[in-house]
């Protein structure tokens, strides 16, 4: 990390300000600030406060348990961890190509998660700030306020999220923490009944998703100069891409670009990630600090373009523009408009803005 505010020289002389819990994130985090007598921030840290330990306690367990075990890392994005472990165990048993059905079911499961997570992020967490502005009363600037003042928008958010959860349930058996993906494939296909159940509402979901993009665009254009600058941090970006370079969420190569969009590496087999990515740990957070190996820990940190929004996760690989319809639409639009992919948390000039987020946590 290259942030000069990471460690103050004389912390014993500074006043400590703690922001906890963090809102507008899917997960838990804490920010601590050390402030001098002139109210200037001398140290700012984002702490991920949960210790997980999965790397250790999966040791000695049957390999086929891993997709089910590691998904417990998260209740919002279990499918990502479920699929990551399933892909690892695919390799373990020598499966390098799934059946078309298994591939589609896994992808559908993932898209369901992406949809529900984006709906949660955009409607439940961010829309109060976007619709009411940052100066709105705290007691009102939340999802309950949105339900009162904009019931139709709130309803769409709730039902989009529900739809995503239903996609996960149908493909994995449960809305959260199912067992759909197993080493080498999946344990169930969609019945015709389940297919029809999901097809029934899909047009409405797409319409609402596109409506959310338009809403975001309208809000953004009310003050484009401000929004273009808001929360903008130059960073390397890392993302998953298809063979043709298009944005990908489930299976593909790794691409990294520098802040100017110049390639750092491209189409790296994700199984060789350890050749291009290294990890740091810090004493004050359970979050890992990955960085691009060739650039080093100080300047090699990056944003990830990912389906989800954890604390401190700031997406932004370059392949997303014009991703159009589908589950990625809200995140895609945000990026396409040049907006911060995380909804506004802090104003420019707000002293908390110095609490520069680190790279993505998993």
């Amino acid at each position, binding site marked *: 990390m290259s942030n000069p505010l990471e460690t103050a020289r004389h912390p014993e002389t500074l006043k400590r300000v703690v922001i906890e819990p963090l809102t507008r994130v899917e997960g838990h985090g804490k920010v601590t600030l050390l402030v001098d007598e002139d109210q200037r921030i001398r140290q700012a840290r984002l702490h991920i406060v949960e210790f997980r330990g999965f790397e250790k306690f999966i040791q*000695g*367990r*049957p390999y*086929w*348990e891993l997709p*089910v*075990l590691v998904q*417990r890392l998260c209740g919002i994005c279990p499918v990502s961890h479920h699929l990551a472990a399933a892909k690892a165990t695919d390799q373990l048993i020598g499966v390098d190509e799934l059946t078309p059905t298994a591939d589609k079911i896994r992808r559908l499961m993932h898209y369901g998660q992406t949809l529900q997570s984006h709906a949660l992020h955009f409607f439940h967490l961010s829309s109060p700030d976007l619709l009411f502005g940052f100066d709105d009363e705290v007691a009102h600037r939340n999802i309950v306020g949105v339900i009162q003042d904009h019931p139709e928008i709130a309803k769409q958010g709730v039902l989009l999220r529900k739809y995503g959860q239903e996609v996960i349930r149908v493909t*994995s*058996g*449960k809305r959260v*923490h*199912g*067992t*759909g993906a*197993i080493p080498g494939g999946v*344990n*169930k296909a969609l019945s015709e009944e389940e297919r029809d159940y999901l097809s029934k509402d899909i047009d409405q979901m797409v319409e609402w998703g596109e409506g959310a993009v338009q809403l975001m665009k309208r809000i953004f254009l009310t003050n484009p100069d401000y929004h273009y600058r808001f929360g903008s941090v130059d960073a390397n970006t890392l993302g998953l891409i298809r063979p043709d370079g298009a944005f990908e969420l489930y299976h593909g190569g790794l691409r990294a670009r520098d802040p100017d969009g110049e390639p750092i590496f491209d189409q790296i087999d994700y199984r060789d990630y350890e050749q291009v990515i290294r990890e740091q740990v810090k004493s004050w957070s359970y979050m890992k600090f990955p960085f691009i190996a060739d650039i080093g820990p100080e300047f090699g940190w990056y944003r990830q373009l990912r389906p989800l929004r954890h604390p401190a996760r700031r997406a932004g690989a370059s392949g997303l523009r014009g991703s159009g319809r589908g589950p990625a639409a809200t995140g895609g639009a945000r990026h396409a408009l040049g907006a911060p992919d995380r909804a506004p948390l802090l104003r420019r000039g707000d002293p908390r803005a110095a609490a520069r987020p680190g790279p993505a946590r998993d």
Partner: protein
Amino acid sequence: MKVSLSSRGSFRFDGKEIPFTPGQTIMDAVLAAGEYIPHLCHNPEFAPHGSCRVCVVGVGGRQVSACTAPAAEGMVVDSSSEEIQGTRRAILQMLFVEGNHICPACEKSGACQLQAVAYYTGMLAPHFTHFFPRREVDASHPDFIIDFNRCILCELCVRASRDWDGKRVFGISGRGLASHLVIDSPTGRLGDSSFAATDKAAHVCPVGAILPKHRGYEVPIGERLYDREPISLVGDVAAHEEA
């Protein structure tokens, strides 16, 4: 046909009349009548063991294990009062904290008798402090694994291997809290024993301790044995294909 009292009788079971023949236990008669008493160490194919105590019922102000207590003419058996269900819950809670029973990740979830009986008795939480014992998984056998974390010492595999397979692959060693399942092989590992996938002992485990390889999570959530029907209707997992 006239039935003499000496060859046939009946008793009251939660208000229902249950017929029995001499020599039958309360459990035998109740199961034969299509009713249910929760149990873990009992399996009708093997001699009653009476060790898990989950089948406790009230008879004449005393608590007895239904799998070992003989049925008697005119007895009144309580299997559903809160007192009896509470006793069962406490036994189950102790079983849960003694081992490492992590249902959310266990491939036996949904087809596990311990889990199903816990649901039957209305157990919602373990209540007691977890022991969190450290036990290894034995994956040395090509077809089966043993996860000792989930063993409840019911001795069904011990009985099946000894009485059915004629092998004595399994035994219980130690006393009290130190009791544990052991395997008769030079290394103590399953892979070095005479255990085979076709053994009866491979198909009687009521929990996720003895599990076939290559089939983990094969049955989707929602389609597993106790997802479909409660244990009081479908009975032991060993009597079904998912054993």
